[in-house]
């Protein structure tokens, strides 16, 4: 029998395929992680502060304290993801050493490098990265991201940017799908994306890796909206633990993600959830405070 091969592209991408149709929830401690698991989350994202607090408190946002991450890993049986700063490959090495299941190289944290993202092929642990359009998604996949998520605008409770980014990515895929093969090189140049990945995406009619939505999802209907637009699953950050009844809301978002095509179920689970997080009008946020423009 052949040797076992670990850290391969197939097991990295395959891990994300197991998460599809599910909800990945931001948690900052073991207690929240247990609530997320109990509500039916397919994974949790361990971080020090949820994006709404990062936005409010300011300062440099970094990888979470390993103690916190271990506490969360010990509290649940579902996969645990954690965030590293863009370009901070040592934070990523630390997270890999801790044994997290996925690393989010995330614009929600303060970037450590304004030009270079992490060489994700160099790791055994898989990475998810944010994007605003197809070119950005394919650049991250080129660097080794085994899963993509739209950036949205984290910590706003406002789904508008997640919709914008999902429509951009999915619309561009539809556009290149209808191109002649001799047009792919030009579009690769235009988008700044690797030609081979443009070709593969055009042939598949979808990204070659799993594609979730993130950044501003706060209600069951928001989650179902993103699913109907064509993403594979959703991340919910501040939307759950900044609401008045996290358990109920988390459960409702999980159910709406599974039954995203069934308005009667979405209507039922949306009833009496209490206050959603307050939310921000993205147009009122000063340009320099936007998180989605971090990374390129």
């Amino acid at each position, binding site marked *: 029998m052949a040797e*076992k091969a*670990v*850290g391969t592209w197939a097991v990295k991408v395959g891990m994300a*395929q197991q998460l599809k149709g599910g909800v990945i929830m931001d948690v900052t401690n073991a207690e929240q992680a247990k609530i997320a698991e109990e509500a*039916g*989350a*397919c994974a949790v994202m361990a971080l020090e502060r949820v994006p709404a607090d990062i936005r409010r408190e300011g300062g440099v946002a970094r990888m979470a304290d390993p103690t916190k991450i271990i506490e969360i890993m010990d509290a649940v049986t579902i996969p645990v993801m954690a965030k590293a700063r863009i370009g901070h490959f040592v934070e990523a090495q630390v997270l890999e050493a801790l044994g997290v299941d996925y690393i989010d190289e995330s614009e929600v944290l303060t970037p450590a490098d304004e030009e270079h993202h992490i060489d994700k092929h160099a790791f055994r642990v898989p990475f998810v990265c944010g994007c605003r359009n197809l070119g950005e998604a394919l650049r991250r996949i080129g660097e080794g991201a085994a899963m993509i998520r739209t950036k949205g605008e984290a910590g706003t409770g406002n789904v508008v940017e997640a919709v914008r980014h999902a429509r951009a990515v999915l619309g561009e895929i539809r556009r290149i799908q209808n191109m002649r093969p001799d047009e792919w090189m030009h579009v690769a140049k235009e988008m700044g994306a690797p030609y081979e990945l443009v070709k593969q995406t055009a042939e598949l009619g979808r990204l070659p890796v799993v594609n979730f939505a993130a950044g501003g999802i706060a209600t069951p209907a928001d989650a179902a909206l993103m699913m109907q637009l064509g993403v594979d699953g959703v991340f919910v950050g501040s939307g759950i633990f900044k609401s008045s009844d996290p358990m109920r809301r988390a459960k409702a978002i*999980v159910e709406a993600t599974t039954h995203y095509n069934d308005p009667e179920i979405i209507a039922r689970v949306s009833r009496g959830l209490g206050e959603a997080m307050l939310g921000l009008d993205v147009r009122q946020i000063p340009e320099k405070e936007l998180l989605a423009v971090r990374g390129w």
Partner: protein
Amino acid sequence: MRIGVLALQGDFIEHIQILRALGVEAVEVRLPAQLRDLAGVILPGGESTTFGKLAVEYGLIEPLREFGKTGKPMWGTCAGMIFLAKEVGRAQPVLGLMDVKVKRNAFGRQVESFEVDLDVPVLGAEPFHAIFIRAPLIESVGEGVRVLARLDDGAIVAAQQGNLLATAFHPELTRDTRWHRYFIAQVKPVA
């Protein structure tokens, strides 16, 4: 012949694509009524705790159990195998149909996930290239359960008990369709 794939969460689309490529009608199952007129059911990979909670919430546990007990084929891959098992070593909702004891996350976390060539005599001489992701394994099997594949160290990773089939790995993530064809062959032609 119509086969349902439990579509609460996980890689159900991959199963459906393979079934359709093999010329089988395949449908997504999220509610009990969708089990009607199915010749077989696949429980896909994903998170078994997520499946369990949604299956309880939407009244799927008993109908799925009944379905399995009628003798129609059911196949669980990875999380689906956990969902099918009698014993999983912790309190979580499962169907408890198959007489196997399963250990969740038996190989460790994601960095321990692996690919390996497996000898599977029921599929023929050529090894099956299997993908294990945070995979469970079968610690022990009851009477009447046939072991179909083991790792080098003897760990059981595929088994069958009559109409029930379980694989700890994900045939839906590879291009080799032999497991799907094996499962389809278990489906008795509807008179």
